[in-house]
């Protein structure tokens, strides 16, 4: 078990170091997130609906799109120089590769979300300070499941034609349960409802995460084995 995690961490660190060296992907994803928030602002009539009604949806949808974009680059690194084949030749197990990729993707997406949140607060004037821990936990829960499936799928689509189109088409149906649950729970948080009322949503989110992380880890070897 510790081998699994140790190897996974090696893979994750490799990806994150590469990201750190040239921050293009991160900056681009961040800029994209900000632009989506801006688009949402102009997509609504400020006199017609209260911000608080739309805010949960805006936040969660923006995060979903940003995560989609981030996942597109997940296996791009390996595609260049046939690094994936090299990676598969190492004694590191397939499961470790998957978990390592997952950790790297989560770190990437998490950072984008963390930077995006204050901007969301500023743009839409939504106070979140009093619910920040709960909100952060909720965002983390909904991101994990989605990124788990996305990491699995991105391994598949890099070998297909029109990979950039295939990934969203396959991935977005899987984003719906986390999105729906996150929006429902976020709405409760923003309107000051007690945390107990969101507990059902959070449990379902956790169940989704556990099921799909498990399933993706199990199925990942089928996407890279010959």
């Amino acid at each position, binding site marked *: 078990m510790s081998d699994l995690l140790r190897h996974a961490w090696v893979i994750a660190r490799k990806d994150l170091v590469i990201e750190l060296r040239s921050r293009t992907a991160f900056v681009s994803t961040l800029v994209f997130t900000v632009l989506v928030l801006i688009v949402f602002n102009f997509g609504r009539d400020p006199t017609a609906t209260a911000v608080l009604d739309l805010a949960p949806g805006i936040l969660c949808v923006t995060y979903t799109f940003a995560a989609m974009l981030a996942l597109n680059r997940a296996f791009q690194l390996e595609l260049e120089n046939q690094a994936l084949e090299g990676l598969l030749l190492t004694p590191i197990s397939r499961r470790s590769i998957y978990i390592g990729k997952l950790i790297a993707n989560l770190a990437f997406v998490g950072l984008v979300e963390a930077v995006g949140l204050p901007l969301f607060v500023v743009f839409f004037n939504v106070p979140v300070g009093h619910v920040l821990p709960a909100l952060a936990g909720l965002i983390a829960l909904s991101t994990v499941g989605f990124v788990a499936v996305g990491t699995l799928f991105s391994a598949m689509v890099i070998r297909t034609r029109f990979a950039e189109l295939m990934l969203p088409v396959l991935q977005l*149906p899987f984003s719906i349960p986390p999105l729906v649950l996150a929006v429902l729970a976020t709405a409760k948080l923003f309107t000051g409802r007690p945390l107990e009322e969101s507990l059902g949503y959070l449990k379902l989110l956790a169940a989704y995460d556990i099921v799909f992380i498990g399933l993706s880890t199990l199925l990942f070897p*089928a996407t890279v084995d010959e």
Partner: protein
Amino acid sequence: MTLASRGRAVTAVALLLLVGVYVRALAFTPLERFQGAAQKIFYLHVPAAWSAMLAMGMVGLASVLYLLLKDQRFDRFAAASAEVGTAFCVVMLTTGPLWARPVWGTWWAWDARLTLTLFLFFLYIGYLLLRQAVGDPPGARARYSAVLGICGTVLLPFIHLSVYLFRTLHPQPIVLKPSAPSLPGVMLVTLLYSFGVFTLLYIGFVMQRYAVGEESAHA
């Protein structure tokens, strides 16, 4: 007889029996008092939905078996079931709004069941697109499809559960109640007959589509 010709025979029988369903539903089954004639769409919509769900379940099962046993025939069956399921899904998605509009006053509603049917459709489309988009290496298409098939089948209950947390407009199940079906006898018989025909149609279609897959594999 080859699989294809047997499939054609089964389909032909099923189509003839489908005419029987049409006649029975339209001429020999009474009108429903509150919904009017539009209620009869039920005799096509529900069995189509059943076939579409059955087909997806078969895709999931075949996908698991393929990954475990690596037998090409399971992949061929999954591909066949997916295409056939898509056809039934289209029937379901067209008859659904045609039933909803007169009865609920709206073409569409985002309740749990309708939304699930929409997602079932997009899973099918994604599955078919993926199969088309994968080129080399050989065997990748079968493996990738299997992965998607399994993930998709597992996703469906989550979709249903999460959307259920919104208000649902869908009629409550009136056939499969534990005590006794609230559907009057005549209507129940028509419905069950239609279920049988749609299942037979599924079988005939899959046999033929499987044969098509065999043909392209050995071409």
